[in-house]
C-alpha cells in the first residue's frame, strides 16, 4: 500500500520480521568465525553467544527455553568445538536463566551484565574442558584474555541488539 494511505495508528510490523530477526542475528554471530581471522590461541569472543545472551536478557519472554538446542547446534558447526558442546552449554544457560527469571523480582542493567559475564565464563571454560577434560584444567589461563574481552564487549553487543530490537518492533 502506498505510504500515504496506510493507517497511521495501531500499525504492526510484519510477523516474519518480529519472529525471524533474533535467530538470524544469532546465526550471523556464530558464522563470524568464517571471517579470515587466524589466531594461534583462542581470542575472538564467542559472538553467537554474546548476541543470544543480549537478546535473552533484553527480551526475557521472547525465547522458549529449548532454543539453546538449535542455536547451539548451528554454533557448533562453525565454532570448531565438538558437535554437542554448545548444544549442552547453551541449553544449560537457558534453563538456568529461566529459573533465575522465576525467582527474580526486578533486575537492572548491572545485574544483567553480571549474569551475562558468568554465562560467558561458564560457556568458554566449559567448552575448553569438554575438548580435553583432565588435561585442559592446566591450561585454563589461556582463556583469560578471551573471557575479559567478551565481558567487555557485551555492553556494546547489547546496544547493537537493542537497536536491532527497536527496528524489529517499530512499524
Amino acid at each position, binding site marked *: 500500500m502506498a505510504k500515504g494511505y496506510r493507517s497511521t495508528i495501531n500499525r504492526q510490523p510484519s510477523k516474519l520480521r518480529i519472529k525471524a530477526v533474533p535467530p538470524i542475528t544469532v546465526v550471523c554471530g556464530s558464522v563470524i568465525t568464517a571471517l579470515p581471522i587466524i*589466531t*594461534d*590461541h583462542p581470542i575472538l569472543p564467542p559472538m553467537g553467544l554474546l548476541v543470544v545472551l543480549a537478546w535473552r536478557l533484553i527480551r526475557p519472554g521472547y525465547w522458549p527455553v529449548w532454543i539453546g538446542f538449535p542455536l547451539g*547446534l548451528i554454533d557448533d558447526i562453525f565454532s570448531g568445538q565438538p558437535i554437542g558442546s554448545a548444544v549442552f552449554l547453551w541449553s544449560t544457560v537457558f534453563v538456568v536463566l529461566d529459573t533465575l527469571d522465576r525467582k527474580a523480582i526486578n*533486575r537492572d542493567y548491572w545485574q544483567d551484565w553480571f549474569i551475562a559475564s558468568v554465562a560467558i565464563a561458564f560457556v568458554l571454560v566449559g567448552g575448553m574442558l569438554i575438548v580435553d577434560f583432565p588435561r*585442559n584444567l592446566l591450561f585454563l589461563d589461556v582463556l583469560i584474555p578471551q573471557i575479559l574481552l567478551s565481558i567487555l564487549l557485551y555492553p556494546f553487543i547489547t546496544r547493537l541488539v537493542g537497536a536491532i530490537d527497536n527496528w524489529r518492533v517499530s512499524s
Partner: protein
Amino acid sequence: MAPPTNRRPGFSKRAQYSIFASYLLGILGAVVGLLLLLISFIDPRGFSVLRTIGAEATAPISKTLAEATGATGSAADNIAAYFNAASKNAAMKRELEKNRVELLEAKAIKQENERLKRLLKLKEETNDSIGIARLISSTSSSSRRIATLGIGSTSGVLVGQPVRAPEGLIGRVLETGPTTARILLVSDGKNVTPVKRAKDELPAFATGRGDGTVDVRPINISDNPFEPGDLLTTSGSGGLYSPGIPIAMVIEKTDTGAIARLLANPGNVGHVIVQPIFQAETVAQIEKAESEAADSEEAE
C-alpha cells in the same frame, strides 16, 4: 528488566503446562547435547559432513576476504609486543647471536650433506607439493585449534597430509570438503607430533597447548636434556611428516620436558603448502583403517 508477567499464568492449567513443557524441553536439549558430545568423542569424524557443509557454505566469503585483506592474526601479538618490549629485545639479541652461530653450523652441515649425497648418488625423495593455498579462517573463538584451507579434495587434498609453511610445520589435514579442508594445527591439544632435536636427533613428542606453544616430552623420560634455544624438527617416525621440517624452538624447561614456541604462526604465513604423506605404508594403513570402518558401518 522485570520478568514478563506471562511467567505466572494464574490458574490456567493449559498455560501452566505449556510453560512446564518448554522447561522440560530445555533440559531435554541439554541432555541431547551431552549425547551428541558422546557421539562426537566415540566417532570424532562422525559429524564431519555437517562441518564440511558449514565450511563450504561460508567458503566464498572467507576466500574473498582472505584474498582481499590477507589473514589477520597478528593483532593480539602486536598489542602484546608493547608490554615486555625491553625484556624481549634483550632476549632477541641473545637469540640472534646464538642463531648466527647455528646458521653457520647449519650451512656447513648442508654442504657436507650435499657432498655425501653426491657421493652416494642418493635420489632425493620426491617431495612435490599437492597444492598451495591460503588459510581462509580458523576456530579463533574455540579452544580447539583448527584452520580452514582454501583447497579441498578436488585439488587432491587427502586426510592426513601434512601442511607446512616456509617457516615450519602448520599441521595436518583433518577433514576435507570439495573446495575446503580443515587443518588440525600443531598447537591443538589433540595433535601429537613426533619430533627430534635438530642438533643431536634426540626423539621426543610435541603436544599442543592451544596457545601457539607445544609441550615437548622426550621419549626417554629419565633425563631432561632440553635447553632454551633448542630447535625441534619433525623426526619422520610415524610416517606422516617427512623428517626435517622445522617445528618449534624451546623457550622454557619444565619438570618433565620443555615448552617450545612454534616457528610458523598460522596467522602470519601467507600461503601454506600441502605435502603428500611421507611414507606409503602409512597411506596403506590409513586406507585399510578407513575401509574397515566403512565395512563395519555397512555391517551395522
